[in-house]
Each structure stands twice: as C-alpha cells, then as structure tokens.
C-alpha cells in the first residue's frame, strides 16, 4: 500500500532532483511535463526499478486518484498506460507508471511530418484497441491527443502505442465534480458535443481519434472547429490530399459532428479501419523509414541501470537510522564538516534521533533545525 509511505520528501520542480518522495521514490530527472504536473524518471527504492512518476498538486490530483483507486488495476492492456500506484507527500501526489521511452506522437510528427498511411493505420489500430479496453470499463478518456499517445522506443521495428494520461478521465454517467459550464479537455481536440457541455460519452473519444488520425496523415494540427463547420454546412468534406480515400471513409465517420452518426464504439471503428487497410494497396518501396527513437536519454551521473550508484543498499539487518545532518536528504550523505568562514555560531546539538517515519499528530512533517546564521 503506497499510501502508507506518507512521510517526508517533495516533488515538482527542478530543485527537487535527487529527493526522495514519500520515502520511496527517488526523483532522477524530469522527462516531461503534462498539463498540470511534471513527469520524472524516478527510482522506486522498494521495487528496485525505474518508473515514470507524475507529480501533481493534491488539488489537481482528485480525478486521477479516483481513477487509480477504481479502475487502473482492471485496465491491464498492452496499449494502455495507466498509473500503477500512487503516494502522497505533503501537498503533492505522485503517480507511478511504467517507463515508456519513445516519446509521444507529437515528437514523431515533429521529426517526420506527415506519416505514411500504413504506419498510421498500425498506430490507429493500437489506439482503438486500447480505447476499447478503456471503454469496456465504462471510462471515457476525454483527453485523447498526440501528446498523450506515447510510444515504446521500438527503433525501426513495428511501433507500439500506449494510451496514457487519465488525468481527466471519468466513468460514464458519473456526476461531474467540475462546473458543468467548464469544459474539460484540450482545446483543438474537443468533440462538438463536448463543447456544448453534454455528458461525457465514448463517441467524444472517437471524434478525438479522428482528429489524431488527420494530424498523423497530414503532419498538421487539424482545425476541429472549421472541420465541424464545414461538415454541417456542406456535408462530408473531401479527403485532404494526403489521406487515401478508403481511410478517409473511416476518419470522416469518426469526425461526424453528430455523435449519433459517428461510430458508436471503438471496436466498430477498429473493424472498419481493418477493412480500409485491405484497400490501401502495397507500401511504396521508397517510403521513408520511421524510427522511434529512445527519447529518454542516458541516466544522469550517479545513476546506473541498477539504480543510484551512490547509495549502496544497506545490508539487511536492523533498520537503519537516517543520517540527520543531511536532512532533508538532498545530497548523498557526507560526514558533517565544521562550518568554515564567518559563521561563528555552530548549530545547536542535535536531539536524539527518532525512528524514521511520521509521528502521531505531525502528519509526517518535521521541523528543520534552524541554523542561527
């Protein structure tokens, strides 16, 4: 139970590097930034492995907390990246996820521009299969967009997409916590009915899949509003230049402004996509090779594949007491040095150490011993 780890630490901005969150997760380096929080590579001291850790202010974490408690364990799918666990520490909450190293679809478009239709179809198929699993649990994702679609670092092999960021996901039919007038999601990826404040439903996610498809094939961010307007005024727009006709059949049906005229299920859209792929024809021989790079970069100094090199595992035995002079633990332990220079007032003698962990009534907070200088 990660919730029991509540003790001290921190998390959030660059100054937190190297700190241990909730006595368990050592923040290694920032690897991304979501809408509301930072994502870190973190070393899980208990499980002895690297994880991705999203650190949120508690006030931003309610939806995700509820999602983790209610859903995450049930959605175990190769194309879904749901948080595994969480830990709270002061006013922050940390969610852990598997590390996924290949960046997002936004990176891929940045590097390659429009992607070849066959490649896009593989990605869409995986997205729809992950979304089928999410919808099967009654969850509407509500924030499907390129930056939330991560990739494993598969190099020139078959890509492997993971649907991530359930930060504003909800159960269908559940009362919304936020004001109904306040539309949640990312501008540019709203379904028209979402804009009108309707109850979240699965077809809204499918509309966003249609926009992602268009973005991948054209390399440009689609203008959802203009698209809907055009659709309503003149019926189905013609296929953009880069979109093969059979694929446009599927995508334009995902993009239908009327949610009842859209595909109703991710599984249905996926089936139609599979049929469209059959009509695409052979992959051209001169097609540029898409390589999904490892975007994580090397571990910073002091960290190896087996975790932090500077903190050897304490030998098993009686519980170790943390060294007080380096508290909170922002740097590796070094023996206390006499204070040089102008400081003429040494710190007062430290009190006897307490056992590690929160004391009743303090909720894990500890006072730092003030230096008179």
């Amino acid at each position, binding site marked *: 139970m990660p919730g029991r780890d509540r003790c001290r630490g921190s998390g959030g901005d660059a100054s937190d590097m190297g700190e241990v969150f909730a006595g368990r997760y050592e923040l290694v380096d920032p690897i991304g930034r979501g809408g509301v929080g930072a994502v870190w590579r973190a070393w899980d001291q208990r499980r002895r492995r690297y994880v991705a850790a999203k650190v949120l202010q508690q006030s931003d974490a309610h939806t995700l907390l509820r999602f983790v408690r209610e859903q995450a364990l049930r959605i175990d799918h190769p194309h879904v990246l749901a948080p595994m666990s969480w830990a709270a520490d002061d006013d922050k909450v940390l969610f852990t996820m598997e590390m996924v190293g290949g*960046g997002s679809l936004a*990176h891929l*478009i*940045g*590097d*390659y*521009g429009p992607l070849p239709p066959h490649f896009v179809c593989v990605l869409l198929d995986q997205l729809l299969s992950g979304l089928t699993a999410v919808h099967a649990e009654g969850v509407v994702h509500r924030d499907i967009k390129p930056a939330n679609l991560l990739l494993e670092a598969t190099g020139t092999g078959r890509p492997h997409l993971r649907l991530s960021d359930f930060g504003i996901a909800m159960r269908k039919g559940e009362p919304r916590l936020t004001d109904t007038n306040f539309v949640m999601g990312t501008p540019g990826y709203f379904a028209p009915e979402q804009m009108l404040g309707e109850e979240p439903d699965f077809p809204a996610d499918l509309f966003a899949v249609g926009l992602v498809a*268009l973005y991948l094939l*054209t*390399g*440009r*961010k*689609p*203008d959802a509003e*203009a*698209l809907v307007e*055009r659709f309503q005024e003149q019926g189905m*727009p013609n296929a*953009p*230049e880069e979109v093969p006709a059979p694929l446009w059949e599927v995508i334009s049906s995902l993009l239908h402004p009327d949610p009842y005229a859209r595909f109703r299920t991710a599984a249905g859209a996926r089936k139609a996509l599979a049929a469209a792929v059959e009509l695409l024809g052979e992959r051209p021989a001169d097609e*540029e090779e898409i390589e999904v*790079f*490892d*975007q994580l*970069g090397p571990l910073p100094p002091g960290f190896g594949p087996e975790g932090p090199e500077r903190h050897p595992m304490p030998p098993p035995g009686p519980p170790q007491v943390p060294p007080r002079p380096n508290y909170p633990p922002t740097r590796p332990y070094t023996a206390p040095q006499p204070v040089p220079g102008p400081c003429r007032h040494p710190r007062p003698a430290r009190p006897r150490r307490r056992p590690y962990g929160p004391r009743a009534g303090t909720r894990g907070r500890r006072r730092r011993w003030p230096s008179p200088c």
Partner: protein
Amino acid sequence: MDAAQQEATARARELQRSWYGEPLGALFRRLIDDLGLNQARLASVLGLSAPMLSQLMSGQRAKIGNPAVVQRVQALQELSSQVADGSVSAAEAAERMEEVKKSSGGSVLNSTQTTASSGAPTVRRVVREIQSLLRSVAGAGDIIDAAGTLAPTHPELAEFLRVYGAGRTAEAVAHYEAHQS
C-alpha cells in the same frame, strides 16, 4: 564506423548539401554559434527531437521529414544572418525564436491558405510592419488617392502604395516575395 557506414554518411551529407545548401552538421552548428543556443535548445526551437537532430547532424539521416521544420530552419538562417550583421539585437532574436518555434503548418482544410501563411512567418512579419508604417502615415483612402496621382508617371511606386497601403496582406506578401532577390 565501417566503410559502408562512412560511405552512407558521405552520401547523406552530399544530399544535404544539395537540398539545404550545406551539410546539416555545419549548418546547425553555425545556427548554434550565431544564435547562442545549444543542441537541445535548437532542437526545441525547430520542433525536432534531440535524437533526430543528432542523426541529421551526423549524417546518419539525410532528409528533414517535416516540411514545417524546414521552414523553421530557413527562418532561423535568416535570423542568424540578421544577428550577425547587427540589424537584430540578441533580445529581439530570442523573441523571434519563440515565434519561429510556434510557427506551424497551419490548418488542414484550408490548404490554399496553408501555403501562403506557413510559407514564411518572417516575411509576413516584415510585410505587416511595412503596412502598419504606411497606414500610420496616411489612411487607406489617401493612399489610394496618392497612388492614383503617381500611377501615370511612376506605376511601380503607385503599385507599392496601393498594395501595402490598401491591399490585403496576402497580396502584399506576394508583392514582397516577388521583389525579394
């Protein structure tokens, strides 16, 4: 590096020279120097990932796949030459780089507009400045009058006044581009 790889790299650099004027390693290093960047920052302004930038620079990959990135490279080249000749200050350059970073290919549906607007954000900017300067001196009606007066003797000047003082921006951009050497 074995011989085959070396050969592939040399070929990639040759292709880069023909497409972009010089190998991207040299081109990007000059941008880094002139604009006071590092590789990570250059990658972020161009909208490329760090591994892709490094592959392009080392010649492991020849082509910049994303046309929007090619446009940003051109915009940065223009900016770096302006910084080099002193016509743009460092602070202004930083601001312009933010604009370059945000510039994108435009919307999918309006493909006719896309080419015009995504073509060169800096050209648009220059044109807008000329337009606003002219319009701060005189109203559109006066400018059209003046253009009419000039037309018989100085048709090019009249055209210039009409296009920048009273025409649409797209027209002015076209005029500007046609008269750029």
